[in-house]
């Protein structure tokens, strides 16, 4: 185990500057169309915000509610794309569309039904935010506490 820690430590300290791009995984839109995630890498120089969530995760809903409240005003001055990526599996995936409509959320929601994207991006737990720019991951954050959405706003502003 100590070796594993040592290796992990080595990577944590030396590798964090190596920016990763987003692997190409097939997700599904709420309308049922396939969506290839390479699109996140191709969205020119706009920052792309990916929020990993699930219908049963209360801090995730808190985060998306807070972001939804701000989205309109952020979009007035800033250029960015926002996607909420649902990690609901087939137990709850059918609740996603009614929940999104019921809450009146206006951002795009994608379904990652067997957590393929989550796994490949090493997203261990949700809520989790990833920001991609020019095809590289420039920001990651695990967890949500009230006010964290301001940090997302700040990163978007810095990357215009």
């Amino acid at each position, binding site marked *: 185990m100590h070796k594993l820690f040592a290796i992990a430590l080595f990577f944590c300290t030396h*590798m964090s500057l190596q920016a990763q791009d987003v692997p190409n995984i097939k997700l599904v839109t709420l309308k049922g169309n396939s969506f290839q995630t390479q699109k996140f890498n191709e969205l020119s120089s706009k920052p792309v915000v990916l929020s990993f969530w699930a219908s049963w995760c209360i801090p995730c809903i808190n985060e998306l509610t807070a972001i939804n409240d701000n989205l309109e005003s952020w979009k007035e001055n800033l250029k960015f794309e926002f996607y909420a990526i649902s990690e609901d599996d087939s137990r709850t995936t059918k609740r996603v569309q009614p929940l999104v409509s019921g809450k*009146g959320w206006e951002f795009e929601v994608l379904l990652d039904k067997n957590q393929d994207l989550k796994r490949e991006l090493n997203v261990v737990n949700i809520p989790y935010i990833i920001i991609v720019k020019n095809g590289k991951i420039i920001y990651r954050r695990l967890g949500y506490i009230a006010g964290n959405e301001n940090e997302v706003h700040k990163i978007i502003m810095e990357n215009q």
Partner: protein
Amino acid sequence: MHQKKIFIIILLFSSFYVNAQLSGGFESNSAYYIDDDKIKLEQIEARQRFRSNNYLRLDYKFKKFTTGVQVESYEPKALLNYSPKLNKTNLGNYYINYRNEKLRLEATVGHFYGQFGSGLVFRSWEDRQLGIANSIAGGMVKYSPLESVHLTALYGKQRNGLGFDFSNGTIGGLNADAELSSLLKIKKTKFGIGLSYVNRNEKNNEIIGLKKNVYLTSIRGDFSAGGFTLDLEYAFKSKDALVEFNNIRPELQFDGDAYLINLGYAKNGFGFTANLRRTENFTFYSQRNLAGNVYNEGFLNYVPSLTKQYDYSLTNIYVYPAQPNLSFEPDRNKAGEIGGQVDVFYQFKKETPLGGKYGTSISANFAQWHGLKGRYEAFERKYKANKIGFGQKYYRDASVEVRKKWNKTWSSVFTYLNQYYNSRYVEEATGEVNTNTVVIENTLRLKKTKSIRWELQHQWAQGGFQNWAAAQTEFNFNSFWSVFALDLFNYGNATKADRLHYYNVGGSFNKGAYRVQASYGRQRGGLICVGGVCRFVPQSAGLNLGLNYSF
């Protein structure tokens, strides 16, 4: 020896990173268990009080190829009640993957995860909290001859443990999905079909009369127009021997099937969904005698419980796991389940009497599940279940959740849950439980990233553990540091000595993709459930430490 090899593999792996892209993640969950005046470790467990589960995943991408390993370390021992197969340090997964977007082709050699349709006939996935890591080791090809036609073929053995430990069965699977409306260039309505086939080939020469091949197959269709959606699925399992308490009974062969109907409607501000399902003898394991094992080993299909998944501690005491299995016992025969759930979501708009300045969001859920009605002869191991017929009631719940933002700094969530839980059938214990649970959660923002959150919960219960009260508070100093304290008090327990406080205090540091969390206290015994799959944990006390990092 193993450790040395793994160490070398990883070093080799890391020395190539310069010209390509390396990504990975590390997760560690450790506990030091103590005995306090009320909670003590079992003697056999007490020999090792420090336990730790560690996962290091590295992926290396070069042009169209990606290769990766996951090393897992359970040293000196895995956390309480994980499978004994998870011990020491060893390779978990290893794979090479080729992806060509232009050819719409993907191929993997080594370990892979996957799901066919809703997962009723095949799903392999990882859930570390539940100790599930049932990837298939072998080969998988995904190919889309047209943009709206997707084919998958796979072959291999299922991981069961670490390194080169696999289940006995060899798995072969085929899946096809076609988005027919896109093929026909129809825009206003959307419809598609899917077909799956999964076969397990398992030799067992010691027992005569077993079928070498057992398969699951599924046909499904989906349709949507306007805000409406409808999905239908029928799945069938071929005859397989009954397994009772690890005993294979070749003279008793049963087939099984499953029906699933999902209905939905959504428009801005309103959403509705109904899920109905009937399963009969519909569990499928990668090794016959793993049927019904307590460590969630060898799952090949996914039959989640279709009930709402709750996120508060007292709403998670009586969790219903799906009951697709066949078992005979006088007065407790089971052949499957039938039932459904309904969800409604509604948003009261801003600037309306109920919506107030910021709007009010409300959701309600109802779920009810029964055993299959029919004729059962337990001693002769015979049964005949009606296609439609509600037998013994297993579970029912009804809940309402209201979210309200009062002003710029204060928001609340109210939850009410009413449950009926038939312990006799669901847990194969005794009795029934009726509960009413209320939860109030409040968040107050003090400054931009400084906030305080508190929860008050109460559960009135007849049967089971009787009444509970719980309180939790969390203080977030800034976006990095956070502390919490909680107490669950089972003050109504019928046994006086079991009226325990399950308290916990802790804190976390969170910066970007780093997270460190430490807590001290007591863990309630019972089922930990994720996605309707549960793992039993005994109650314990001690110090917990969690680390997370990804890059």
